[in-house]
């Protein structure tokens, strides 16, 4: 075994750091999926009739759908009857009115994760919504935000307090029948975050949601809906962790973004779900549908994702560029180590005139990880003078991993300009030796080379999260390199 290989193995053995379980009493629905389960969830949340119907329609449609098989993934069959579709920390019948009433153990959990929900959060200057299993447990900075007219709350609260907004936009960009997992989510989604930025408002702080799966044998099905009215701006970040468990757990979320005229939404993800152990046992199945609608002219939606966790990631944050002169961007770092698999990318659908999109994808494969980029660029006949630039780079660390690229380009307008660049490199022995020869240790050299490889994406992240992402990447790669 070469020296590189042995250091790779050493780093691969690095343990997942968020794998603890919080010992907290939960009400968890018995495993199984049926109309009754959906009625229970909807009833439990006191939802209006139209939403129950919406869920049931999605469910009935889902029953006739098949799990997609086109991705470059090996997925063990999922028994949807073995999953519990609802779990919430046991609390008094009335939800806590403020964070002071939230179970201290929950607060402790978020402290451990580095997401302090309590007073201290004020120092960080980031408004946080925390979703624990199926429910939102607390949103910080609510008052400050409402002064600016910004609504940032759990999805359940939004259904209760702003039903007309929810009804108007829910499913308007990811319809319930969009795909297998989106349909499932539409049927059983339990909570999530809701953001509304009114016309002309620049959201005064970063918004952030932290998702955590705690209970065993549960799925997490959250929904995020962000609406940015005319000429408004918001930057939103989500983070995710889960305990270490031997079974695979399903996370099937839907995120919908709507940007009206001149609005600007920046959506960043640092995904660190439990990836499974070094033999590929356990880990989260992360099957997520994310789509943004640049509905108004000159609107802009930018996705940035750093995907280091999950046993399997299936996810294509996309932009529908409907408004003239609208802009869609996708910046992605996806890392697979051990037996992790990722099939991720984006779709840029150009409908409006002079629309522009940019795709920067960085895939890193280590261990026996398999990493696929799958991207669609579609220029429709109306989309005069549209432009796309795609850059898709893969880095292989070690000799047992794989990188794959599946670009789909459909151009139906002769004035369009579409560029695609792709590279694959093995973490160069040359690069490594160059660093070593200058006195830099192997581990530092690899971190440096990988960090440099991801730079274009990291610089799109909000400052404090860029640091987190970099650290996360180092941890995920620890031992992976030589």
């Amino acid at each position, binding site marked *: 075994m070469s020296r590189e290989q042995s250091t790779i193995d050493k780093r691969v053995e690095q343990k997942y750091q968020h794998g603890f379980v919080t010992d907290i009493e939960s009400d968890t629905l018995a495993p199984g999926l049926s109309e009754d389960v959906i009625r229970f969830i909807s009833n439990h949340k006191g939802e209006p009739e139209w939403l129950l119907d919406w869920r049931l329609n999605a469910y009935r449609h889902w029953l006739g759908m098949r799990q997609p098989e086109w991705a470059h993934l090996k997925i063990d069959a999922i028994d949807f009857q073995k999953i519990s579709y609802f779990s919430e920390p046991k609390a008094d019948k009335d939800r806590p009115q403020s964070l002071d009433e939230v179970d201290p153990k929950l607060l402790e959990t978020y402290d451990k994760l580095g997401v302090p929900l309590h007073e201290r959060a004020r120092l960080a200057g980031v408004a946080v919504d925390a979703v624990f299993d199926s429910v939102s447990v607390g949103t910080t900075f609510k008052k400050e935000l409402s002064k600016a007219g910004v609504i940032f709350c759990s999805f359940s609260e939004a259904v209760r307090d702003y039903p007309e907004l929810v009804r108007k936009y829910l499913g308007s960009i990811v319809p319930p029948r969009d795909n297998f997992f989106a349909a499932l989510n539409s049927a059983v989604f339990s909570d999530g975050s809701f953001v509304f930025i009114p016309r002309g408002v620049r959201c005064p702080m970063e918004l952030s949601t932290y998702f955590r799966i705690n209970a065993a044998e549960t799925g997490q099905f959250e929904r995020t809906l962000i609406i940015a009215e005319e000429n408004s701006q918001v930057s939103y970040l989500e983070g995710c962790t889960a305990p270490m468990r031997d079974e695979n757990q399903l996370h099937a979320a839907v995120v919908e973004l709507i940007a009206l005229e001149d609005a600007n939404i920046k959506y960043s993800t640092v995904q660190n779900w439990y990836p499974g152990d070094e033999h590929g046992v356990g880990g989260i199945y992360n099957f997520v549908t994310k789509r943004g609608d640049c509905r108004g002219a000159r609107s802009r939606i930018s996705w940035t994702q750093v995907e280091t966790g999950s046993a399997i990631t299936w996810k294509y944050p996309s932009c529908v560029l409907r408004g003239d002169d609208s802009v869609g961007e996708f910046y992605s770092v996806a890392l697979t180590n051990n037996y992790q698999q990722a099939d991720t990318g984006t779709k840029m659908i150009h409908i409006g005139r002079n629309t522009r999109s940019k795709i920067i994808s960085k895939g890193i494969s280590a261990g026996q990880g398999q990493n696929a980029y799958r991207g669609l660029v579609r220029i429709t006949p109306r989309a005069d003078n549209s432009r796309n630039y795609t850059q898709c780079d893969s880095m292989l660390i070690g000799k047992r991993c794989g990188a794959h690229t599946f670009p789909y380009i459909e151009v139906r307008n002769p004035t369009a300009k579409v560029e695609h660049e792709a590279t694959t490199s093995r973490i160069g022995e040359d*690069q490594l030796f*160059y*660093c*070593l*020869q200058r006195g*830099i*240790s192997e581990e530092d050299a690899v971190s*440096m080379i990988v*960090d*440099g490889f991801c730079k274009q994406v990291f610089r799109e992240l909000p400052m404090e999260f860029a640091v987190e992402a970099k650290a996360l990447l180092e941890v995920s790669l620890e031992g992976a390199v030589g």
Partner: protein
Amino acid sequence: MLTIKNLHASVDGMEILKGLDLEVNAGEIHAIMGPNGAGKSTLGNVLAGREGYEVTAGEIIFRGKNLLDLEPEQRACEGVFLAFQYPVEIPGVNNTYFLRTALNAQRKYRGEPELDSAGFLRMVREKLEILHIGDGLLHRAVNEGFSGGEKKRNEIFQMAVLEPALAILDETDSGLDIDALKTVADGVNRLRDETRAMLVITHYQRLLDYIIPDKVHVLAQGRLVVTGGADLALKLEEQGYAWLEDGGIEALETDGANEGPNS
């Protein structure tokens, strides 16, 4: 400073160095010349500890330590610097950051305090001034998109910052036009002092017009076959290397080389 005895090394099972001896003292510049494929670059890579270069016999003592016992990064920290024939690009990694990481790794190894960015930057600017190199390369990624000349200048700049005890310049002149060659040679000359030794590996005599070596060795068939003074390089320039094939060594030796082989 550096003693190499009976060095045998192979690459992919093929023996390239076949009993090489060399003694380099502090303050000296030695030129290693020879035809293509003679093993010149192999010597540099073996000294730096590159993977894939297997030493099958012999020893290398560097400042009292057995170099072959050390990992490449340890050798660097002990003061061995290799200026690469083909400097490697590391996209996205800032040149200044790279160099500071390297310098601090070396300082840490030697038990010296690490430099903060302000202190480092001050030092770096001094070096740039001495070398007459603009500060443009500080802001760019390591060698990314550099021209051939810029890459070589960057190597010399790194050498100036890291202040190695032994610098090995592997075909630093290859691919340089005359102006770039002068800049590089000028940089090397400024770093020349009595504590530092240099091994200049080159195919052509041209570089040695600007970097005057104390000794010139000819490496052929895996050994140093001739050693002489600076004028030996000129002879090689006139006569090429073909004479090595037909017993010309003696002719060359008697023809004015002022020192014998391996003296």
